[in-house]
Structure formats: structure tokens, C-alpha cells
């Protein structure tokens, strides 16, 4: 037996364990109905794989795990699925949750199941998957799926396995009785865990108030090849708390916010080890557990082997409950258990005890008195916190200070509230503060998220604005340059770039028009709805609304019309698209011509093999040139044809345009020379006509030929 360390604080409440250890574990008579909650632990609820009306066999899977932290559920006995839906469950919230309801048929017909022949020869993954499929979950506290803990060996070095047999809460004797009667199964389970995690050291932590259990374990351990230590720890609540037990056995503290595996320790409850044993050696899923039924309000306090899903009422009946004495029904121990208000609440995988307490046994808490800062809470706090400071902070909603005083290291063991001379329900204050802080943090996260999104949107809008601005500037500059160019080439007054700008502007206009039309339509729709609403309810201002609707109708029509017109007018411009191709084709042809010329020059200087190669290249080039030329000409012809099809002779048009331009120039010159007013006026009139003609011709020409 190794050294046992100590943890700070702790209390010695009356144990009340003797009552329920007088008789051996008894099997419960089969209940008529079982309610199996889909969620019995943190993580994700299992998903049902049976339907209402199905007949299920004992041990058949009825819900499969979803995701990593989730546990399978199995039918505890054979029967018919009656319903799947909300039913009261054992949870502090008192809320209903989804349960599978099985009506038992009393036949206890097992599904085909068999154990693993030699688990030591299996892949660890396969073995763990088998345990997962058997729905094994922690049977001490939180009901954490066991397979997740068994995987810890993958990414942690586990050197110590701690088996939690402390059972420090008063009243509870389920683990005690298990050890007395099923030490072999427990040892078998430990062997499986040890095989998977390969710890160098295994410690069973057990309080010194269970001498018979210690004896049974020692007897079972005889001849065991594993390095297992039974460490007897002094009876003190909460020595069974995971972190407290680790401190007791190893002297090491689990760092705040970390898990024991981070310091190479894995903790398993003693009940879980037995469940693992049965799963591995017999293929039996976790469908029953030992539950202590005790308290002053039952005639026969005892430990029962109970099917998961059995309503509390059946357990109480089996133990002879005094209905008139029953005041408070607690699931779990008196320190951390939760009260249940409903006796149809079922036993789940973590239900280790049910206390049917009388008023004398668990009287209502006396009224809360002012805190006198006596500090007794600090003396007993196993997490070494300052409970009364936390209380003041929780009361004053000073959550930052509470966090700074390590509120989240509180394990809610209730030792502080137990000793408080002012009867302050301290644990409730901490729960309140914790939930407030959690809510605050969630909201903060949400707000941060929203802010980030808003900022991103703002940045995007700014960027778009800047880009738009840059584009507008570029266009303006180009226009200015064009203006300049027109000025310098004033002899040939051809509007070149202006129309180009107009062409690019046109699609934007179409888009804007489309949006405008859509907006107008939406507005109209809204106005119509409002009008209808107003008519239905006989509200005031119907007339105004009607007028608005008519106006909007007109507007929408106008917008639609404008959009359609604009769209129609852009179509011929789209026809000009191949013109771009023509230009590139022309360029390509000229590039190739240059290449050919270069190649010919190079060819003259070459001889031998290189020459042959070059000649080959040249011929390919020529071929390509011809092709390109042909394509170009074809495109040009197509354009001319297209123009001709519209009744325009492109060539004639060109000539006409040139002549008109020449006439304009001529007139301008003569205007510059003439000094008589009359003659000037006549010339100016002529010039205006000539210009108009030239512009028209130019425009027509532009429509058929790219600029």
C-alpha cells in the first residue's frame, strides 16, 4: 500500500451507508414499462434505430451513437417499442427529454450476442469499437462515453490508471456492494482497460469505510500479474471527486482547465470496469446497473440490480416506500444529487442512488442569514477557492472578479454550503454566476462575430466605392485625352472616343434600368399589399394609398418600358462584337507576315540540316499566314455583306463620309478667309449643314465598322 497524500478542505457529513449494506444486491422484478432517455450524458443524443411497434430483444441496439461523444442504447429486455418521445428524465433542469418507451413482454429473450474470444489479440481500435457498440459509459458521474476515454492512449502517454472506488457521497453503497460481490468482474474490466491504455501503474482509490470491499478486492487481486495498488484513503467528502482522488493518490494536481490525461492519468469508475468486463467477455451491452435505494422513507434500504429505464416508482415499490413520509426524492447523493419531482423518471446509466428522504432527514434549508465572513467555507473547499468572496461577487454580479477568483474551478461539491452557519445556498450562487458568465460570453462571441461581419462588409463597400471612383477617374482622363486629341486633329472632326465611351456606358445604363424596374415593381407590390390590408381592416387613408398604387403602377410600367427599350437598343451593339475579332485577325495576319519575312531573311543565312528545319518552319508559318489571311478576309467580307444586307454599301458609305469631311474642312477654311458678315453667315449655315451630314455619315459608318 503506497503513500496517500491529502487534499485541502473536505467535510465529514453523516455517512448513512450502513442501512443499505445489510442485504446483498437483489434483482429487481421486471418492470412493465421502461423509458430509456436518448441522452444520458454530455455530447450528442443517440439516434433511434427502431420504430414504434417494433419488437426488440434483450440487448438489441435501439439507438446508435451519433458523433464521437455519444453512447449506444440497447433494449434492457425483450418487448415492444411503444413510443419515442418526450418523457420526464433525471436532470437538474426538470425538463422532459426524448425517451424510447418499451413495454416489456416478460420473456427476457436475448438477442444473439457473444463475447470476444481473445481481446488481447484484437486491434485496439476493434476492441474499443466493440465497447462503444455495447454502449458503455461512465457510471460514476457524468456518464461520459467510455470508448472516448479508452482512445486517450492514442495521443496521450498514460502512465497511471486510477480506478475510482472512493464512493465518498453519504448514503450511496452501490460501488461498495459491487466490490464485495463482483470483485472478479471489476478486475477483469481493469485488465481490459490496462490492455488498451498500457499504464505502468494502476491504483484503486477506496475510502477506509469499506473494509469488506477492500478485503474482497485484495482477495481477487491475489495472483494478478498487473501492477495494481489498492490505496485506502481516509473517509472525507469529496475524496471521490476525480481531481481530489488524483491528488490523494498521486500528490499531483490536474492543471486547471485540463483533463487528467494531460498529466498521464486516466480515471475510471469501478462500476464502469465491470460493465466493460461484461461487454468484452459476454458481449452484453450496458443494460442494467446497481442502484442504492435508501432513505428514511423506504422500509427496506438496499441495493438493487436494475434495468436501465426502470421508473423510480418501481424501485421505491420494491423497497417498500412510505408514501406519507416521503418528502424529497433525490437521485445521487445528498451532496450533489438532484431532486426529482416525478416518480416515473427512469434509472439511467449514471443513477447510482435514490434517496427517499423524510422531512426530518433532509429538512428544508433554514432561511438564509447574512454572511458573517467566518471563512468556514474556505476551510472546507477542496478546490482551495475563497467561497465567500465568490458569493459576494456572484451576489453583486461582479463576474470579472469571480472569474479572477477561479470560479470555474469550483466543482460544486457543496462542502461550503454544508458548513455555512448562515445557511447560504452557496452552490446555487456559483451556478448562477457560472451560467451568467457563460451567457455573457456567448453573447460576446455573437456580438464579435456580428461586428467582424459588419466591418468586413464596410471594407468591401469602401473598396468597391474606391474602385468605382478609380474607374470613373480613368474614364474622365481618357475623355480629356480624347478631347485633346480632337483639338490637335481639329481638321478631321471625328468623334472617336466619345462614342466609345457611350458604348461602354450603355450596358451600365441597362443594368441600372433593370434594377430601377425591379425596385419599382417591389414598391408597387408592397403598396398593393398595404392597400389590401387597409381595405380588409378598413383603415384610414385608403384613398391616399390608392393614389400611391396608381402612381407606382405608372412608374413601374415606365421603368419597365425604359428597361426594355434600352435592352433592345443594345442588341445591334452586341452585333458589333465580331468586329473586335476582325481587328485581332488583321493584327495576327500582319504579325505573321512579319514573322515570315524574318524567317525568310534567316533562311538565307542558313544551310544544311538547320536550313531544312527552318524551311519546314517557314512553310508552316506561311500556311498559317494564309489561313489567318483567309479568316480575316472572310470576316471582312461578312461584315460588308452584313452591312449590304441592311441596305448599306460600306464602300460607298466610306467614300461619302470622306467627301463630307472634306467639304466640311473646305468650308471651314473659306470661313476663316472670308471677312464680310453676310458671306460669313451664309458660309456658317452651309458649314452647319455639311457638319451635320458628315456626322450622320460617320455615325452610320461607325455602326458597321469598328472604330
Amino acid at each position, binding site marked *: 500500500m503506497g503513500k496517500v497524500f491529502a487534499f485541502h478542505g473536505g467535510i465529514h457529513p453523516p455517512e448513512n451507508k450502513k442501512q443499505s449494506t445489510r442485504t446483498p444486491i437483489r434483482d429487481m422484478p421486471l418492470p412493465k414499462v421502461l423509458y430509456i432517455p436518448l441522452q444520458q450524458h454530455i455530447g450528442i443524443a443517440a439516434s433511434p434505430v427502431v420504430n414504434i411497434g417494433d419488437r426488440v430483444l434483450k440487448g438489441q441496439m435501439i439507438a446508435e451513437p451519433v458523433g464521437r461523444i455519444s453512447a449506444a442504447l440497447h433494449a434492457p429486455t425483450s418487448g415492444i417499442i411503444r413510443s419515442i418521445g418526450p418523457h420526464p428524465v433525471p436532470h437538474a433542469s426538470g425538463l422532459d427529454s426524448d425517451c424510447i418507451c418499451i413495454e416489456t413482454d416478460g420473456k427476457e429473450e436475448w438477442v444473439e450476442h457473444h463475447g470476444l474470444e481473445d481481446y488481447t489479440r484484437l486491434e485496439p481500435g476493434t476492441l474499443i469499437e466493440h465497447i462503444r457498440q455495447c454502449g458503455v459509459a461512465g457510471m460514476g458521474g457524468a456518464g461520459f462515453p467510455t470508448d472516448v476515454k479508452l482512445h486517450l492512449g492514442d495521443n496521450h502517454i498514460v502512465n497511471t490508471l486510477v480506478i475510482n472506488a472512493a464512493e465518498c457521497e453519504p448514503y450511496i453503497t452501490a460501488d461498495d456492494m459491487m466490490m464485495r460481490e463482483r470483485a472478479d468482474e471489476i478486475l477483469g474490466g481493469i485488465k481490459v482497460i490496462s490492455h488498451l491504455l498500457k499504464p505502468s501503474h494502476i491504483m484503486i482509490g477506496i475510502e477506509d469505510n469499506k473494509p469488506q470491499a477492500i478485503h474482497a478486492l485484495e482477495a481477487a487481486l491475489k495472483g494478478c500479474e498487473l501492477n495494481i495498488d489498492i490505496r485506502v484513503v481516509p473517509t472525507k467528502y469529496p475524496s471521490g471527486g476525480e481531481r481530489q482522488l488524483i491528488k490523494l493518490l498521486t500528490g499531483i494536481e490536474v492543471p486547471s482547465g485540463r483533463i487528467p490525461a494531460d498529466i498521464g492519468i486516466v480515471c475510471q469508475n469501478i462500476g464502469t470496469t465491470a460493465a466493460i468486463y461484461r461487454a468484452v467477455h459476454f458481449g452484453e451491452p450496458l443494460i442494467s446497473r446497481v442502484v442504492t435505494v435508501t432513505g428514511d422513507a423506504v422500509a427496506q434500504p438496499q441495493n438493487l440490480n436494475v434495468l436501465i429505464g426502470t421508473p423510480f416508482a418501481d424501485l421505491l415499490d420494491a423497497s417498500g416506500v412510505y408514501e406519507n413520509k416521503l418528502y424529497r426524492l433525490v437521485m445521487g447523493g445528498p451532496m450533489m444529487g438532484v431532486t426529482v419531482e416525478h416518480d416515473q423518471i427512469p434509472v439511467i446509466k449514471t443513477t447510482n442512488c435514490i434517496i427517499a428522504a423524510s422531512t426530518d432527514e433532509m429538512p*428544508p434549508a433554514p432561511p438564509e442569514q447574512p454572511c458573517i465572513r467566518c471563512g468556514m467555507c474556505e476551510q472546507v473547499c477542496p478546490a482551495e477557492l475563497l467561497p465567500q468572496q465568490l458569493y459576494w461577487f456572484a451576489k453583486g454580479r461582479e463576474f470579472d472578479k469571480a472569474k479572477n477568483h477561479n470560479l470555474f474551478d469550483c466543482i460544486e461539491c457543496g462542502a461550503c454550503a454544508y458548513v455555512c452557519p448562515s*445557511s447560504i445556498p452557496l452552490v446555487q450562487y456559483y451556478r448562477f454566476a457560472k451560467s451568467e458568465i457563460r451567457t455573457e460570453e456567448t453573447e460576446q462571441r455573437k456580438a464579435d462575430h456580428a461586428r467582424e461581419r459588419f466591418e468586413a462588409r464596410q471594407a468591401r463597400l469602401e473598396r468597391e466605392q474606391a474602385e468605382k471612383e478609380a474607374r470613373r477617374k480613368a474614364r474622365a482622363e481618357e475623355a480629356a485625352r480624347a478631347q485633346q486629341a480632337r483639338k490637335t486633329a481639329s481638321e478631321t472632326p471625328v468623334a472617336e472616343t466619345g462614342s466609345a465611351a457611350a458604348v461602354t456606358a450603355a450596358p451600365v445604363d441597362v443594368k441600372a434600368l433593370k434594377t430601377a424596374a425591379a425596385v419599382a415593381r417591389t414598391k408597387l407590390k408592397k403598396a398593393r399589399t398595404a392597400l389590401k390590408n387597409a381595405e380588409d381592416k378598413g383603415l384610414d387613408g385608403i384613398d391616399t394609398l390608392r393614389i400611391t398604387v396608381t402612381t407606382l403602377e405608372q412608374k413601374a410600367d415606365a421603368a419597365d418600358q425604359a428597361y426594355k427599350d434600352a435592352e433592345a437598343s443594345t442588341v445591334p451593339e452586341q452585333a458589333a462584337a465580331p468586329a473586335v475579332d476582325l481587328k485581332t485577325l488583321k493584327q495576327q495576319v500582319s504579325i505573321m507576315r512579319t514573322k515570315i519575312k524574318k524567317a525568310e531573311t534567316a533562311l538565307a543565312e542558313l544551310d544544311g540540316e538547320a536550313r531544312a528545319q527552318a524551311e519546314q518552319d517557314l512553310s508552316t508559318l506561311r500556311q498559317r499566314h494564309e489561313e489567318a489571311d483567309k479568316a480575316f478576309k472572310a470576316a471582312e467580307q461578312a461584315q460588308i455583306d452584313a452591312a449590304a444586307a441592311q441596305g448599306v454599301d460600306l464602300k460607298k458609305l466610306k467614300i461619302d463620309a470622306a467627301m463630307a469631311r472634306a467639304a466640311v474642312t473646305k468650308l471651314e477654311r473659306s470661313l476663316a478667309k472670308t471677312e464680310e458678315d453676310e458671306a460669313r453667315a451664309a458660309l456658317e449655315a452651309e458649314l452647319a449643314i455639311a457638319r451635320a451630314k458628315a456626322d450622320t455619315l460617320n455615325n452610320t459608318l461607325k455602326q458597321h465598322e469598328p472604330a
Partner: protein
Amino acid sequence: MSLIRMSSPHVYKTNTTANVMRLVLLATLPGIIAMTVFFGWGTLIQLVWAGALAVAFEAIILKIRRRPLGFYLSDGSALVTALLLAVAIPPFAPWWVTAVGIFVAIVIAKHLYGGLGQNPFNPAMVAYALLLISFPVEMTRWSAPFVLNGEGWPVASFFDTLGAIFGSVDSVWYDSFTGATPLDELRHRGGLTNEEAWRQSVVLSEGIGAWHAVSAAWLMGGIFLLYRKIITWHAPISMLLALAICSAMFYGYDPDNYAGPFFHLSTGATMLAAFFIITDPVSSATSNRGRIIFGAGIGVLIFIIRTWGNYPDGVAFAVLLMNLAAPFIDIYSQPRSYGHSKANKGQGGKA
């Protein structure tokens, strides 16, 4: 089936504030007996008078504050305050001095700050300091121990004492039953060395045994409280140690002019303060480490005030000064919590 829903835990230790106060009252018994034996009936009369006043004031103020009378009166905290003040003031102090003191303690120092658990200063010490400053004559008229008055148990008779407290008596009458305390003697010894003062003063040479005995009685009560886990050892032990170390250092340096550690520990209100006054949880530091600092501060301050201050004893002022510092000490004396490599300091957050 109608069952109740309750938050855990479901069991409580039967240990109420009233219980704590009752045990504190019980623990003062040896001290009260010793004081009565050595200084006469005055202490007992003051106790009863102060207790009655305290309950009356508490009831009135609770009524004004519209608090449930029975619920708050039964916690016994007013009685403890009254008791501490009654044993601190001289046994022959006139009735109105006690009345003023109790009024200040209960009404001003306690309830004006919000009642039980909210007062930053120890109510009894606030009252004592106020009385000492306001009524120096009455507050320094300490009875002489009976051993100085002659054979037998020659204390002032019960009715004489009653008359002295509630009526008026000749100042000559006072002279025959009152005298300087050892701390007074040492304070006002002129240029005498310790040894000379001892030889000259009857109080120091013969009467000091009374103070030793009373101190021992308070110590007994303190040990009882420690045993019953009503108080922790941190504040008392650190205060006594600090006082002993300070006095030992100066005594070792100059034994003629400074009193020794034993003298400091066994006279005046040292023991009463250590176990009954600075352990008042409301106004002291709260963590164990904080209480050590708190107690040590008081010990040092007592020595400083006794040695260089204007008053022969400095417990009240020392306690009040450290009461001021208690919240600050609390902020910087958090314990290291489980799973943390070091203790947090400061308030955290924006404070």
C-alpha cells in the same frame, strides 16, 4: 406525488450563526470570571447593562429598518459586541459611557453600514476608540486589582459598585479602588529604567499578577474556540508572534527602556484582542493568508502605539487601522487554487 425540487446539497451541518455566537460567549466565561475576581463586580454590572442596551438598540434599529426582529435578534451578534465592549471599558465607567459606547457600536458602526456582515470596522473597537478619545478621565479610571487593597477579597461591594456606575460618588471613593494599569505605569515612568520603575511601582511589582491571570483566562477561552474550530489559528498566532518578535527585538537591544515580550503578551488587552477581537470575521481579512497578514499588522501596530504612541494601550486603534486595510489584504492574498501553479493577485477585470 408531490415532491419538492431543491438544489444540492440536501444536507446541512446544524451549525448556525447563533451557535457560533453562543460558543464565543461561552469562551469568554473564564476571562469574565477572572476579571470579576481581580477587579470586582464592575465588569459583571457593565456586562449586564451593556447587554441589555445592545439588545434594546438592536431591536429599535431593526424595527426602523423594517427587518424581522426575532430572526435577527436570535443570532446573538449584538450580545457579543456588547460583551467585548463591556470587558474593554473600565469596570467603574459611568452608565452613560457604556450607553454611548453601545449606541455607537450597534447603531453607527454596525447598522448604519448595513447590519450584520456589512460593517467594515469592528463595532466594539469603534465604540471603544470613540469613548477613549471623548471621555479620557472616565475611560482611564481602571480599578486596581484587589491584591493591592489589603487582606482577603477587598473589592468594592456590589452595591457600592452599582452606585458608582449609576449614581455619583466622591472622587475620593474612586481613589481607594482605582489605580494605574501596568501599561500606564510603564508609559508614565518618567526617565526611569524598567528595573527602577518595577521597584517603585506597586502595580508592577505586586499587582501585575492580576493581569497575567486575566490574560491567561482569555487565552483559555481562545484555545477553546480554536479547539471548536470557531476561529482559525492564523490571525491570533500571527498577531501574538508579531508582538512578541517586535518587543523581543527592542528588549534585546535595550532592556532598560523597552518592556519584554512576556510583559507585552500578558498585560493590557493583548490576549482578549488576539482571540476575541481580531478574530471577528466580518471586519478582518478572509483568507488564511490574509488573516496572517492582518494579525501581524495588528501585532506590530500594538507594539508601536504602546511604545511610542500617546495611549498606553493601542489595541483599538491597531484593530481599526487593520480593518481599513482588510479589503486590500483580501485582494492580494488569494490562496493558490487547486490546479493552478500560482495564486491570482488583484481584483481581475476592470477593478
